[in-house]
């Protein structure tokens, strides 16, 4: 199972996940979201933000990393 699954058939490339990822782990490649597993901390914000329901995050965040809408705190 991948840490972050992105359904490219549902992704409409709006860039909301890219803009609000606290670790800047997402980017748009050919108008589809793509994740850099090296940067991803598995906080799940993109899963909540995605207006297309195209993202599922399977990797849990480490307990010491508190993530809010405003980013890492």
């Amino acid at each position: 199972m991948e840490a972050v699954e992105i359904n490219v058939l549902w992704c409409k490339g709006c860039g909301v996940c890219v803009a609000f990822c606290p670790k800047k782990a997402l980017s748009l490649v050919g108008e589809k979201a793509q994740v850099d597993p090296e940067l991803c901390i598995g906080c799940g914000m993109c899963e909540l933000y995605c207006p297309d329901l195209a993202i599922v995050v399977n990797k849990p965040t480490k307990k010491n990393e508190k993530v809010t809408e405003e980013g890492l705190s």
Partner: protein
Amino acid sequence: MAFRDLIRERFFPHIWCPGCGHGTVLNSLLHVVDKMGLDPTSMCMVSGIGCSARISGYVNFHTMHTMHGRALPCATGIKLAKPQLNMIVPMGDGDAMAIGGNHFIHACRRNIDMTAIVLNNRIYGMTGGQYSPLSGRGVLATTAPYRSIDDDFDAVALAQGAGATFVARTTAFHVKELSKILTKAIQHKGFSVVEVMVQCPTYFGRKNKMGGAVQLLEYYRDNTAPLGSKKLEENQNLIPRGIFVERERPEYCEEYQNVIALAEGKE
């Protein structure tokens, strides 16, 4: 069960434009229902007409897609017949405040146990970008090419004045807050109103030169503040977010059951 199990996958990708805030609200609602462990067969969603009303087609609950502005009366009928259902009524700003304005205030007054979600994108998206009662003064729209001269309703104040027992406001930027508020709204016994300020990049953003989905979400981030926060105290121009009302009042279905018992001579 995962949130994906609560949707009708055959209708995806959905009809909404890229970056539409309605998708984020649907997403959040599914996460909430999943997290609360609610049985999908105990859920009922009734919607009216508009972009927002399309939500009911995507959730794998009992659903009904009804007339413009008339979602609340239809939901009231279903709820009275089957009070055990968890009723969710998503409405757009025009659906709730213009076409269904009268139904909205009377549903608030009756305090029937359901959750009304007002998805406020400040425009009529589906019909091509006409201004709505929540657009506000100075907004550009297809029907206001020289800017709107209408003041907007404060949906929260309206719901409060009409007697809703749970009233909250949040935005599609504040996704964690949205989940928390929706959870509380569903748990609340009585009429809950949640206004969610969502982005319409296609009509509102483009017409008002406010940019796309990301810029509109940043606008909501920068121009809102939580109730009771220092930020809000210092700048009165910010839109307050949070739970405005949470109180108890006799619930309509229960009161109606009492009337039935009385009429049958059981009391």
